[in-house]
Each structure stands twice: as C-alpha cells, then as structure tokens.
C-alpha cells in the first residue's frame, strides 16, 4: 500500500458506492433503534424501529413552504458534501480531507439557517457554530493521533493497520466519545437543535425548514451518523469484530448519556469540547510522541 491510497481503485469505488447506497438505511435504522431504546429507558413502548423512515417519507409528502429560496440550496449543498465526505472516508481517502469536507458540510447548514429570516433560526445557527468550534480540535487530534500510531493519514491504511491503535490512544478515544455526544446532538450538548424537548428555541437550527427540505436534513444526519461510527472503527481496525462491538457499546453509551443529562448552556459545550481536547487528546499525543521518539 504505502503510496497507493486505497490499495486498489476498484475496491475504493465499491466501498464508496456501498456507503452512498447503504448508509441512509443503516443510519435510519440506528436512529430507529435509538428512539426505541430511549423510549424503553423512559418506561415507554416507543415507536416502531422503522419510524425514522416513515417520518422522512412523510416529510416528502408535505408541501414545501419556503420563505427564502436560497436556504434550500444550502441544504442541498449540506447533503451533497455530507455524502461526498462520507464516500471519500469509505473509499479509504485522506482523513484530513474527509474532516475538511465534513466541516464544510456543516458550514452549509449553518449558512442555510442564517439565510432564513427568523431569530430562532439565527440563534440555532450561532449555537451550531459554537458546537463546530467545540468539537473541531478533538477531531483533528484524532486524525493526528491515528497518524502517529499507524504512520498514515489514509483511512485505508489506518483501517487495515495491525497496530492496536486503541492501546496507544485511550485518551484520544475517550475524547472522541465526548465530541461524539456533541456531534450526535445528544442531551447535554443538544443546544442548536434537538430530537426531544422540541420547545427549545422552537426548533433552533431547523426551525425554518419544512417538508422535503427537512427530510434532506434528516437523510444527511443519517449519513453523518454512519461516518462518525466509522471513525470509531479506526481505533479498532486490528480486530473488526471488536470494532463492531465497541461501536454498538459506544452508541448505547450515547443514548444513556442522552437520557441521563439535561441540556447544558453553550459555555459548557465549549468547555467540554476544548477541555477534553486539551487534556485527554493533547496529553495522549504528547505521550505517544515521546514513546515513538524512543523507538
């Protein structure tokens, strides 16, 4: 492999296409299981597992009421860049480029929310920018940490590396779990828009999006979930079975956190995101750096 990213173009194209087709199904199912488990944790029966698909199908049956047409264009860009960054991730591309495309996708949804003339939408957009700022350093540290351990920024090399990355990067992994809570908009950090308690800021970021446009945002969120869970895999690339088990446990932990904590102020999101990046992430990288200096 080494200089040939992906270890073969055909496999890269197949995995990328598989992502584009299968990720919405997987992401939607994860969302459905999430809602079911959440309901069980609250002592309720909960909706069917396929409920997220019903919701999105319904949204596409609704009337498209858009006040500012440009906001829809931004959402299309959000969806496209989410798919592109995810496809590049699963094609085994450069982790850094994936992160940049991923961030760009989020910038588009923020722009979309700013394009609408609504104070709720604007506050939601501002808060989304805060969450972007909060989690970004830790994502970069994750990429750098995996590079230091496996010697490559290419996902294909990291995922197939036999080095047990988790043993070298336990701090980075825990830090990544913290920002995963921010990214999945789980409870202490669901400041910009949330799945529950819809009365917060009306609906924040997505207040002004209705019908099919909201459906696109949901689909983009499914893609996003799959990419984020794929990033957990990179820590356990040496043992795929273990990786799948850890991904399931990590998501379960996120649901548990979601149901245990109440929503915090945005300052707390910043402190948590940068706090884990500065302590767990950075210290872990320093230790790994000195370990490798000795080798």
């Amino acid at each position, binding site marked *: 492999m080494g200089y040939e990213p992906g270890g073969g173009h055909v496999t890269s194209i197949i995995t990328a296409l598989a992502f584009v087709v299968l990720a919405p199904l997987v992401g939607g199912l994860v969302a459905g299981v999430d*809602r079911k488990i959440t309901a069980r944790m609250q002592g309720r*029966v*909960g*909706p069917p597992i396929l409920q997220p698909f019903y919701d999105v199908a*319904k949204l596409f049956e*609704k*009337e498209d009421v858009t006040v500012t047409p440009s906001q829809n264009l931004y959402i299309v860009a959000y969806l496209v860049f989410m798919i592109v960054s995810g496809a590049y991730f699963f094609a085994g591309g450069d982790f850094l480029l994936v992160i940049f495309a991923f961030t760009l996708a989020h910038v588009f949804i923020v722009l979309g929310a700013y394009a609408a003339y609504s104070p709720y939408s604007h506050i939601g957009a501002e808060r989304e920018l805060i969450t972007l700022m909060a989690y970004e350093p830790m994502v970069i540290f994750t990429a750098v940490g995996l590079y230091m351990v496996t010697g490559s920024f290419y996902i294909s090399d990291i995922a197939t590396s036999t080095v047990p990355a988790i043993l070298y990067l336990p701090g980075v992994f825990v830090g990544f779990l913290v920002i995963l809570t921010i990214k999945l908009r789980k409870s202490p950090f669901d400041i910009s828009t949330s799945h529950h308690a*819809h009365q917060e800021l009306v*609906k924040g970021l997505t*207040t002004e999006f209705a019908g099919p446009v909201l459906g696109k945002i949901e689909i983009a969120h499914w893609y996003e979930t799959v990419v984020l869970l794929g990033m957990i895999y990179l820590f356990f690339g040496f043992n795929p079975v273990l990786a799948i088990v850890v991904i399931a446990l990590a998501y379960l932990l996120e649901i548990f956190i979601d149901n245990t904590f109440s929503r915090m102020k945005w300052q707390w999101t910043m402190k948590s995101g940068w706090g884990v990046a500065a302590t767990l992430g950075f210290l872990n990288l320093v230790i790994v750096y000195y370990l490798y200096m000795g080798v």
Partner: protein
Amino acid sequence: MAYLKKSPWLLHYDASSCNGCDIELLACLTPLYDVERFGIINTGNPKHADVFVITGGINELNREVVKNTYEQIPDPKVVVAVGICACSGGVFRECYNMAGGVDQVIPVDVYVPGCAARPESIIDGIVKALGILEEKREEMKEKEKKHGN
C-alpha cells in the same frame, strides 16, 4: 404511500385554556399513554406540524395568532379542537372578550368535547383526524395533477 398517518407531528396551542385540557394533552405523551408509539411527536414548530391541536376558546387578542400559526403549517394539515371551550367557547362563550370556539377563526376538522377532555378521547380524536389528513393529502395530489396538466 400513506406515511402521513404513520408520522403525525402535533402542534399544540393554548388559546385561552384553563390548563386542564393542556395537562390532559401532555398526559398523552407520558409512559401511560405514550402516543409516540404511533409516531406522534409534539413539536413546537408550526412548519414541522401536521396536526394543529388547540385547547381553550379564542379571544380577541389571539385571534390573529391562531390564524397566523395555522397559515404557517404546510399542507396537508388538520385542526383538532380539544375541550368544550375550543369546540364552542364553553362557559366563557358569552364573555365580552371571547370570539367563541376555534371554528370562528380557522376551519376545524375534529371536535373533542369534554371538561377536561380525557386523554383517551383526545387520542381518539387525533386518530380520527389522521383519516381526514389522508383524504386531504389525496385532494392535494389531485389538485397538483390538474395544475400540472
């Protein structure tokens, strides 16, 4: 095809209710009744809503608010008037500041009487509304076809 029936999102507006019907409506979301098992979600945003649930009679001050909120809900949509005040104005009907029931301002599809309306009857009313919602969707589709031609 009929996904609307499987995922109705509610918007609850308290016109001038005494909070009796409001609490009964919120009781539907609790573990005992758990309407989310039917895909029903209580959203706070008219632009995401399918079913507009109003409790309490309309007074002269919120007449415009109700109209405005109703207009913000994308089609197809249904209106459910919960409680006797929302249906007809109830005991407040003759008050100097009251406009009467919800149907004085916007078209109502389902009336759920009661003081306060019980959660069972509210759920029953919303299930009835879903049938009407489906009819409206088909009407909307036909209209679109006509305009398309």
